[in-house]
């Protein structure tokens, strides 16, 4: 039994959902993904509860400090140890099965440790008072310590946590993914569905790993410098350049923006790989692989520099030419999305679809991602940026992109779950999960976009003015529906039945 299998087995409740199937000889590609997926659901439970606390603090007029604590923790838990870790878990399982290589050794173990330990340290720091929001808002961490709002110890702990999470996302996971793709010996006994790099189902994984590594390296350099200074290894004067707000903000958004794009590339690739498996006529082919690959390349090329749209309203400190470049590139991603829309719908039109909950979750997650893409393009336009930047519109955009990708990965997990655990999920509960998630996800997204359109500020603990509480109430209602969908999904995982258990088909036959 591997360490990862032992971690899963030793975890109460959540461990039962992902007990690794050791009977198939696939433990080497199942164990670490199972541990990562399990851990991601633990963080989802944390993030979900915190997400509901935010509107509750506004409705019941609680201390605004609670709002900013939950704001920081909810965003960080949802984006990194839940969403990213779920992607890593399912993505690695896909990679292992596609290239026939084991997911063993120190790299996956370090990915798991750095992500979860980092997130835990950040959580402790936030509970100590380190309320800097999901995006750190540099130099707020240092200014807050200078003003005595939080302690320097919490800053050091928080930065250490963030650094460990970033080390997983920028270095360890991409290196693991790339080493599996390009190095090591293929083992036929581990090949589940062989794919080449020309396959859209594989290309996105490679592009995603490269994007994270390249776009994240400047942030690693800046983060390392700051951390060394915070620990007193180098004098603060040597880290002054890294502590410049402009330097930190630009390297942060070069990474953070491309992190979302890398996750989009990865999940689009997973969709291109999964959709053909559910075509009604059994052809197992997309309408056009070339078109699907073109969409991935366009998304990659346009997204790399579109991060400039984050600074449009800082004019003239960001020159108008760069802002407009960010504007054009952001709308360029829409061309990739248009190609993707055509490829997916033409594939279904040509070959029919077996509408099982997993693939429907993937497709509805993708539809939510299209809504998110439209909202992102609009807010990236220079003119609209001036009336939307800093409003709930952008919280809606960030939350929707994470939710959309999570729904897609949870859909893909339906396909991988029987391989990992040797058990199957109930399709009726699966259908209920999809229904609830769709209503909750689209509802919350549209409510937040409407709040932004009405000028409701994001990260702002005073909703009860200008009629904004209406949007707050809607966010709460749709948030509860989303929460219910997660409960249904978790219940389905908990009561999954053995593949050989005919009783399991009793419910599934409906």
């Amino acid at each position, binding site marked *: 039994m591997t360490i990862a299998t032992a971690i899963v087995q030793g975890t109460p409740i959540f461990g039962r959902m992902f007990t690794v199937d050791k009977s198939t000889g696939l433990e080497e590609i199942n164990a670490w993904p199972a541990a990562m997926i399990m851990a991601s659901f633990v963080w989802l439970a944390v993030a979900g509860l915190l997400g509901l606390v935010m509107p509750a603090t506004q409705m019941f007029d609680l201390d*605004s400090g609670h709002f*900013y604590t939950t704001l920081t923790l909810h965003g960080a838990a949802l984006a990194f140890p839940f969403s990213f870790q779920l992607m890593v878990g399912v993505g690695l399982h896909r990679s292992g099965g596609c290239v026939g290589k084991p997911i063993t050794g120190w790299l996956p173990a370090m990915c798991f440790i750095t992500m979860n330990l980092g997130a835990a340290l950040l959580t402790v720091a936030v509970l100590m008072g380190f*309320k800097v929001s999901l995006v750190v*808002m*540099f*130099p*707020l961490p240092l*200014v807050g310590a200078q003003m005595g709002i939080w302690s320097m110890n919490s800053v050091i702990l928080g930065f250490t946590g963030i650094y460990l999470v970033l080390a997983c996302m920028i270095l360890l996971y991409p290196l693991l993914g790339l080493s599996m793709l390009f190095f090591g010996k293929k083992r036929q006994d581990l090949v589940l569905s062989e794919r080449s790099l020309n396959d859209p189902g594989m290309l996105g994984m490679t592009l995603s790993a490269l994007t994270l590594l390249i776009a994240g390296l400047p942030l690693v350099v800046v983060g390392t410098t700051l951390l060394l200074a915070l620990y007193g290894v180098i004098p603060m004067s040597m880290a002054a350049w890294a502590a*410049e*707000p*402009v330097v930190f*903000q630009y390297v942060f958004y070069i990474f953070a923006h491309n992190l979302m794009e890398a996750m989009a590339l990865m999940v689009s690739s997973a969709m291109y790989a999964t959709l053909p498996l559910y075509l*009604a*006529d059994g052809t197992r082919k997309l*309408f056009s692989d070339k*078109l699907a690959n073109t969409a991935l390349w366009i998304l990659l090329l346009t997204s790399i520099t579109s991060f400039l749209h984050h600074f449009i*309203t*800082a*004019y*003239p*400190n960001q020159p*108008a030419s760069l802002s*407009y470049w960010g504007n054009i590139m952001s709308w360029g991603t*829409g*061309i990739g999305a248009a190609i993707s*829309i*055509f490829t997916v*719908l*033409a594939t*279904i*039109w*040509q*070959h*029919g*679809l077996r*509408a099982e909950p997993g693939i*429907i979750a993937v*497709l509805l997650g993708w*539809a939510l991602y*299209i*809504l998110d893409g439209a*909202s992102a393009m*609009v807010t990236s336009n*220079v*003119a609209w940026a*001036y*009336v*939307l*930047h*800093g*409003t709930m519109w952008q919280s809606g955009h960030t939350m929707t992109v994470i939710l959309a990708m999570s729904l897609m990965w949870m859909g893909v997990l339906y396909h991988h779950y029987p391989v990992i655990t040797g058990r199957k999920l109930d399709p009726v509960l699966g259908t209920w999960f999809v229904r609830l998630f769709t209503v909750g996800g689209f509802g919350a997204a549209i409510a937040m976009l409407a709040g*932004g*359109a*009405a*000028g409701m*500020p994001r*990260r*702002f603990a005073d909703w009860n003015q*200008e*009629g904004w509480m209406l949007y707050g109430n809607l966010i709460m209602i749709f948030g509860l529906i989303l929460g219910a969908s997660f409960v249904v999904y978790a219940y389905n995982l908990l009561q999954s039945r053995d593949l050989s258990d005919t009783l399991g088909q009793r419910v599934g036959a409906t």
Partner: protein
Amino acid sequence: MLDFLFSGWGAFWVTMGMLLPFAGMFWYVIHRKSVVDSGPGTTPPAKLSRLEGYWLTAVFVIFVSINLASLKFMPIIATARAATGGLPVQEVQFTATSWSYEMSVREVEAGKPVRFAGRAKDTQHGFAVYHPDGRMLFTMLMMPGVSKPTTVVHTFTDPGKYKIRCLEYCGIAHHGMQDELIVTKNKAAI
């Protein structure tokens, strides 16, 4: 029309305008090919290729049109128009510090361009101006340590009390970082 289009609610309806046709098409294709008839499609590939061409052309034209229409609302255009418009430009200089604004003036005249120029002293701050009816007119992002002030040129049309809010999270009293700007009637018009 364009003024509404490039407002907050204009952004919302443009987004919905992109979502709703997609959602309709998405639902139709999935419903038709999984519930009504999941058999292989009979549409010839050549027809699908033509459709692909029409679809991508339409998307491209819509994207370009929207972005061309937005040029007028870019701040650099507003600055240039103010500079060449012949009207004196009113100056509002401000410094944002946690959690208040120091402003050179708090009263400006409607109908004359106002140049807002601001800096952040400690951490990142925003400066969003809200119309008395609750609409946000514009927002600015200030980062500490930059060489130039962030600027926007805006011409107010309606007199009244305008709210100013910080829209960049700046710590535990961020929501309290608010101020007011009085816009008076255009004296030349009285």
